[in-house]
């Protein structure tokens, strides 16, 4: 009986509880990454996986007596900033993809070779040149 209480206390300590939560978040993000199609949702899923990793790191850092491990905390801080830049770049890519193809949904399945392919090379040219011209014009008038 005493052993059981000890095990429960051990399991519910933050040093074990939060890493477990982090692992669950990681698995959840993985599940969402596979199941959802919209690229923005997939980016959210990746971010949730990353947060799970941070939670594991910080939970393990908080184990034991005394102050938590500052190296793990510093790495997590670095990780958060890297995550936001990667997310911003990914979102910029999604916007660009939508401008080229008209949607940002990644449907599963093998590539369909017979499907009509939109000629994106010309559109890319347009999409790149057009807004620049218009915004430059606006800048001049402003």
């Amino acid at each position, binding site marked *: 009986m005493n052993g059981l209480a000890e095990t429960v206390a051990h399991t519910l300590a*933050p040093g*074990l*509880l*939060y*890493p*477990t*939560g982090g*692992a*669950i*978040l990681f*698995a*959840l993000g*993985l*599940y*969402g990454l*596979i*199941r*959802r199609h919209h690229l*923005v949702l997939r980016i*959210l*899923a990746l*971010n*949730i996986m990353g*947060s799970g990793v941070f939670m*594991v790191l*910080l939970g*393990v850092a908080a184990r*034991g007596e005394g*102050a*938590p*491990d*500052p*190296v793990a*905390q*510093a*790495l*997590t*801080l*670095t990780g*958060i*900033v*890297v995550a*936001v830049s*990667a*997310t*911003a*770049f990914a*979102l*910029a890519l999604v*916007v660009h993809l*939508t401008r080229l193809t*008209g949607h940002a*949904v990644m449907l*599963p399945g093998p590539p369909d070779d017979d499907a009509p392919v939109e000629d994106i090379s010309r559109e890319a040219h347009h999409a790149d040149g*057009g*807004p620049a011209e*218009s*915004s*430059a014009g*606006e800048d001049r008038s402003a």
Partner: protein
Amino acid sequence: MNVLLVLFDLVLLAGIVGVAWRCLASTDLFRAVVLFITFGLLLALAWVRLEAPDIALAEAAIGAGITGALLLVTLERLRSIMAERRSGRRHTPPPDPTGPHALLRALHDPPPERRTFLPALTFALVVGGLLVTALWHQPQSVGLEPVVDAHMDISGVDHPITAVLLNFRAYDTFLELAIVLIALLGAWSLGRHDLIPARPAPGPILPGTLRLLVPVAVVTGVYVLWAGSHAPGGAFQAGAILGAAGILLVLARPRQLPMAPGTPLRLGITAGVVLFLLVGTYGLVAGHGFLGYADAWAYPLIILIEVAATLSIALTLVALFVAGRPAGDDT
């Protein structure tokens, strides 16, 4: 063991996992983004509980605030691009919020396909199970805390996390700044920026609040930077605060972006990496090793690097929000 604290942990973790689940299960992207912001705020609470106030600050400012702003502006961009394509006209001006054709369509994702259900579930369960098993059987160790503690007196600062970031493991921070810069270069390589697809709300409230908030944000940002040498805070949190103020400014008047064009902007964005590299090279030449400092010079050099890094991170975050090269330079 405190029963109330354990209860708090369990409720918080259940909330975090639940919000993450609702976010990923949502078919409406706007709802998913709002839930993701909530998720970030709950995470900040968890970091406070895990005795990581630095991370909590960064999570609330960057993870919830700036990522949320990035996601929301991306949804608005996607919406306006889709509306443009649907109406068959190119490069229509951003929708006028007062106009009769205000765009109401939300972005949707079809519900997931049935055939991916079992493989995805199995895969996630196996990975999660393996992770949990590994974490539960990890041997106890004291970590690196005693090592950091033993070397604090030569680090030049009084806060262990700043010491790790800018002295003991300056490599990581240097490369991280480089990654932030590369992300911006990647975004810029996609073309010039388009306008933020929303006009500022009319009326006097927003400019009035900006006049109050922006100076406060500037002072608070510099304070957080200064506090980093002896308390939670530092260049990343300060950069996030200043970047948030910049994003507010961009949002309030997207017609005339308050960003320095061309060269000054590029200098500011690269300042962190360049200064870090210069100091690191000087350390190499002076015999302290790459990115090493002489003990007496550690504090002023760290502050110098942090100021430059703050400037770079703030400008980069704003530039990533605007997404795209500044107009008016053709190089």
